[in-house]
């Protein structure tokens, strides 16, 4: 039986009067705003899913007179392109979200860190920022935004690497703790939020926490913008209610021959056909920053795995050994198995190595290489070996 169509949502790209929302919201007390964001259940939309209201609360609770709000627009996860579209279509809503955050946490300066690959957006964004600054002035809200560009380093999407980069250094992740909410950009309390997350905060302030909270599931409230690509007749950007199974997603977006879906990009999980029905797209199942890649039976999952490992070996910052050496060894390892130089049991050793990387790597990059590795190797062992 074919289940009903997926629920489309239109919050992110909906045209709203940002000025009116800010006029209303910036008059409110910080704790009231934070309560609304907490009540909405909004979790970070960059992939990690930390509750946004908690992040704001922790930053607000810090006593330091200098604090920052940073918009993470370093969208580099393979298969993700929704932030580009959001910044292109509704930049004012993104900056509006930063203004609301500035009020909630007590920041006077915000940074937008845009990946270098999206530099073509800069003239438009700078123009919007200038308009935004005049609006802030008229509202007598002391807040300005600086735009900073990345230069082709995936790792700079990791929050502490991003701070290092804004500070003018190599984008190497820091040890945690301390967390950004107590010691972030320039060592100051910082709330760093994804582009999409910031837009949702605007919509929560407009429609109320309930409106968002009633969408989705207990663990994954609200909706999410998905970047759909690969073997699909409907590649593109879709905002959908969270909590659907991979099966329903494939019914909507598959080409009738889908054998696997990579949820969450290279650092995410590969879901094979036999698990479509039981896997929920969301924090209770497979989380995603938006990347959804469909593969049909004509595709070699070895090629997919090899492409991801090559990506990680190149993008590992090289700072910590488990990630630097681990990424290279996983890549060399699967190549050796493919050539028949190592037997199939060697894959088990590599899975153990991926487990070690998860435990011992300093940041999310090395910690998540094992997600795709394990889920592809375990579900498509034959394709990897033969």
């Amino acid at each position, binding site marked *: 039986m074919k289940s009903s169509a997926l629920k489309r949502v239109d919050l992110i790209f909906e045209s709203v009067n940002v000025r009116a929302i800010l006029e209303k919201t910036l008059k409110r007390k910080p704790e009231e705003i934070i309560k609304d964001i907490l009540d909405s259940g909004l979790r970070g939309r960059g992939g990690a899913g930390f509750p946004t209201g908690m992040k704001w609360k922790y930053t607000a609770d810090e006593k330091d007179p200098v604090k920052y709000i940073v918009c993470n627009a370093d*969208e*580099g*996860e*393979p*298969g*993700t*392109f929704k*932030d*580009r579209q959001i910044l292109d279509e509704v930049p004012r809503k993104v900056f509006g979200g930063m203004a609301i955050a500035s009020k909630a946490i007590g920041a006077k300066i915000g940074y937008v860190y845009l*990946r*270098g*690959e*999206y*530099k*073509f957006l800069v003239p438009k964004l700078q123009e919007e920022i200038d308009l935004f600054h005049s609006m802030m002035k008229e509202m007598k809200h002391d807040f300005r935004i600086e735009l*900073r*560009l*990345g*230069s*082709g*380093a*995936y790792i700079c999407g990791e929050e502490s690497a991003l701070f290092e*980069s*804004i*500070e*003018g*250094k*190599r*984008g*190497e992740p820091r040890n945690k703790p301390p967390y950004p909410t107590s010691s972030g950009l*320039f060592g100051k309390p910082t709330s760093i939020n994804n582009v999409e997350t910031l837009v949702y905060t605007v919509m929560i302030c407009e429609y109320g926490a309930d409106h968002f909270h009633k969408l989705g599931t207990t663990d994954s409230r609200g909706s999410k913008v998905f*970047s*759909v*690509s*690969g*073997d699909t007749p409907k*590649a*593109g*950007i879709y905002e959908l209610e969270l909590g659907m199974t991979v099966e329903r997603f494939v019914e909507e977006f598959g080409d009738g021959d889908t054998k696997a879906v990579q949820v969450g990009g290279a650092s995410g999980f590969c879901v094979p056909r036999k698990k479509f029905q039981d896997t929920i797209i969301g924090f209770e199942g497979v989380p995603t920053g938006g990347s959804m*890649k469909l593969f049909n039976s004509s*595709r070699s999952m070895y*090629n*997919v795995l090899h*492409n*991801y490992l090559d*990506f990680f070996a*190149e*993008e590992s*910052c090289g700072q910590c050994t488990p990630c630097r050496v681990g990424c290279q060894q996983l890549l060399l390892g699967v190549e050796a198995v493919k050539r028949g130089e190592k037997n199939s049991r060697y894959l088990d050793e590599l899975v153990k190595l991926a487990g070690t990387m998860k435990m011992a790597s300093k940041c999310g990059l090395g910690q998540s290489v094992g997600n795709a590795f394990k889920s592809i190797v375990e579900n498509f062992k034959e394709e990897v070996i033969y």
Partner: protein
Amino acid sequence: MSEPINLVKVLADKHGRRRDSLIPILQGLMEETNYLTDEAMVLVAKELDISSADVYGTASFYTFMDTEIRGKYVIRICKTISCSMKGKIDVLHTIEDTLKIKVGETTSDKKFSLLETNCIGWCHKAPAMLINDTPYTELTSQKVTEILQDYMKK
């Protein structure tokens, strides 16, 4: 194009001389010259009063801050899986045949460099590439030939 020393000063006046001015200054240099020369990096180090090793160490971390000679137009074709699935290899071969260079090389007239890059965020319109900052999507061999011909005339 002004002399490197003047350019560095202009950029430092614009972005400041603090440590966090370094990357905007290097990015400003890249806009003018498409790659960072040793000379320019030493000048930046002097201007910001930091070590030139620090400048090089920072620049060399970032893939888009080339420290090797690059052509006027740097082509970066996406090598991530979505683009590979949609015929990126044919497009790449067409570029190589048209410009008579391989990935990693620069044409002898220093007009084009050809590089591969990781996901540039156009997977739904794959295959995609950047020429300097401009994205080109849904490429085919024919389309990329036309694009390159336009650049050759520039």
